[in-house]
């Protein structure tokens, strides 16, 4: 059993939906497809109000190198193109589609599976780009860019991230159990891009024995190594996963490819298979709907753009005790102010919770217990970074490794004084970035 070497915590796993098969959610009468579902610049909308769209039709054009195409997730008529609430916490330009219930694919898409082995490297990357695939674990980095590292970087390790270390979330887990073959094929496609020079791994936390079994079975004879990882947060964070599997450490300012590694999410691998072999753009995804306050917690497959309110209704509604709705996991997710927000390519889960801690969440002074230092997987001094941020000493914060924080929240989880450490760190990072942008502008 492997694990990352420094820090980490054990939050309650709360995997309520681990044994629940993925259910397909019917397409609602209206969907909201955001133009910002990825890292980088938002896509430029290609449709206007009143346009008829088909499922899989491109309705947003990638704007620049770090950006991604957006597709209509079902057939229908464009109702509006305007700025609406986005699960990122802000507003974003989105195409609202009144669905026709037919769910008809656009011409030439959703074809019978073909063998990818005859395809050239360039055409595979082109297909991935056309399908608008981005990292589905949460960051949303365009996959075609990630798969084309600078020529001077040699990739010798490809890791598929099946750790799913966030409490509650079970989407990747269920995909590994139910779509093991597609996951393996997706990983084989990725590996083929590096001409057999890279060794493929799939890292899975030990609390998913059925996924480990399914993946081991499907991986037989493919040269893919299934690595069992200790159940510890943040095992699935990119830097920690690389450290656990290869023993390498990504230093400050480095990217995984600087250490010969490439990490992809389980869902992304399936999306890559769908795009390359079946000409299916990324228009739907598996996500976990969970938390103590949803009547029927489950894993669902929903079209991108489905509103949270529709999903809540599909899962038997939330209880009156709900006071927070979270996108993503409880460690790194975001709380929402409205249920009108839609799911995006990166929505791995929606949690309906009663956060009792909200009522008495006064930040108190640091008692120097050192728990945050022990918990930090990046060997930082979170208490100090928190202080520097609070007192707006951003230069000092940078010296003490501000940029090296992965925002996993372990420090904040363990703090007995309930300091909002990771929030202060994010705040400092945002201001430092703003300042840098102003300098370059």
């Amino acid at each position: 059993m492997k694990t990352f070497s420094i820090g980490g915590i054990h939050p309650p796993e709360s995997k309520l939906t681990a044994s629940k098969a993925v259910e397909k959610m019917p397409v609602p009468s209206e969907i909201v497809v955001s133009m910002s579902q990825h890292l980088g610049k938002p896509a430029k909308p290609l449709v206007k109000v009143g346009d008829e769209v088909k499922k899989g039709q491109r309705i947003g054009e990638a704007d620049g190198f770090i950006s991604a195409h957006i597709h209509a997730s079902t057939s229908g008529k464009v109702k509006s193109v305007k700025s609406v609430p986005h699960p990122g916490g802000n507003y974003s330009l989105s195409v609202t589609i009144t669905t026709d219930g037919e769910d008809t694919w656009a011409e030439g898409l959703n074809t019978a599976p073909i063998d990818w082995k005859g395809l050239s490297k360039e055409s595979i990357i082109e297909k991935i780009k056309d399908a608008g695939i981005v990292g589905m674990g949460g960051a949303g980095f365009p996959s075609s860019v990630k798969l084309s590292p600078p020529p001077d970087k040699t990739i010798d390790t490809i890791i598929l991230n099946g750790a799913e270390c966030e409490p509650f979330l079970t989407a990747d887990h269920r995909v590994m159990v139910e779509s093991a073959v597609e996951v393996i094929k997706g990983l084989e496609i990725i590996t083929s891009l590096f001409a057999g020079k890279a060794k493929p791994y799939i890292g899975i936390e030990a609390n998913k024995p059925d996924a480990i079994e399914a993946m081991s079975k499907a991986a037989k004879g493919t040269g893919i190594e299934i690595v069992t990882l200790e159940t510890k947060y943040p095992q699935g964070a990119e830097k920690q996963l690389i450290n656990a599997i290869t023993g390498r450490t990504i230093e400050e300012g480095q990217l995984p490819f600087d250490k010969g590694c490439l990490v992809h999410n389980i869902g992304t691998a399936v999306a890559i298979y769908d795009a390359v072999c079946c000409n299916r753009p990324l228009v739907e995804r598996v996500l976990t709907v969970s938390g103590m306050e949803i009547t029927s917690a489950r894993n669902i497959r929903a079209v991108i753009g489905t509103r949270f309110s529709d999903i809540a209704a599909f899962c038997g509604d939330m209880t009156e005790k709900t006071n927070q709705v979270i996108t993503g996991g409880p460690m790194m997710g975001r709380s929402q102010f409205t249920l009108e927000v839609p799911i995006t390519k990166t929505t791995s889960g929606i949690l309906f919770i009663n956060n009792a801690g909200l009522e008495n969440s006064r930040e108190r002074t640091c008692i120097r217990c050192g728990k945050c230092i022990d918990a930090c997987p990046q060997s930082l001094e979170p208490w100090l970074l928190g202080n520097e941020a609070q007192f707006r000493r951003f230069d000092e914060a940078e010296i003490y490794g501000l940029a090296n924080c992965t925002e996993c929240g372990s420090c904040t989880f363990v703090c007995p004084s309930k300091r909002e450490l990771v929030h202060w760190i994010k705040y400092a990072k945002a201001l430092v970035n703003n300042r840098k942008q102003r300098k370059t502008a």
Partner: protein
Amino acid sequence: MEPVKLKVSYAPFVRSKDSIESVMYNVALALLPATAMSVYYFGIPALLVTITAIAASVGFEWLTDKIRKKPDSCLDGSAFVTGLLLALNVPSGLPLWMVVVGAFVAIVVTKHLFGGLGYNIFNPALVARVFLLISFPVAMTSWTVPFSVDMQTAASPLGILKTDGMAALSSFSYMDALLGKTGGSLGETSVLALLIGAAWLFYKRYITVSIPLSFIGSTLVFTGIFYLIDPTTYASPLFHFLTGGLVLGAFFMATDMVTSPLSLRGQLLFGIGCGLLTAVIRLWGGYPEGVSFAILIMNSLVPLLDKWDLDEIKAKKQQSLTTA
């Protein structure tokens, strides 16, 4: 249609159950066996001293919060623990008004004048003890004999050693010292009860082994060297382990989170410093007991030990910037 009002807050949305309260009250719980033993040996006076110290500490905490216009912190457990530790650091026969003076020095002077919980440089209970020891030397060294009906007093084993030398210790029993049947402050007596409490804190992971082990270890090594050189002048390391405030200090006072270093290296140096100073004061100092002074002296070095670690991080960063 939204049936409930959604609240927005910062991630993470799950937090551990640890809080200042849980840390503090677990320390208090860990001190319960030692407190119970002291009441068993010294009777009602010990109980009165304990209750007075805790009540006065919590009262002063409440009062200072009011004066400083700070949110109420008197029930967060830290003043409770300070009071309890103060009680365990004084003789059972100490006049109660002196206990109140001690609580004032601990809470108002040592803690709040330095900024309150988390900002004090020195351990509040220890400053109070040393303040009382210097101000009221007779009252602070009149140790009641265990089980005495008429509050008969006697010197502590360390006191006997200091004034009369090794020869006077012929009747000293290691077993009595382990169980606490000797003269001493409330909490200095039963090593066994203290170790049981410390085991609880290790189990709950509220303290780490680095400080207590390096503290006690260096005391034992240092006193052991001199015992080997001349056993007729110097007491055995076991004697030093079982008497005085070494165990209380090493497990419950030196490990105070606020006044001890953050890094492992800092903690080890801190512990070794405490141990050496304790041994030096015990062997050659004017006072028979040196644990309080040793910890307070090392407390004053904690900011320096922490700064050393941070300076190294800074230096590393600057180095990487120049090479890049």
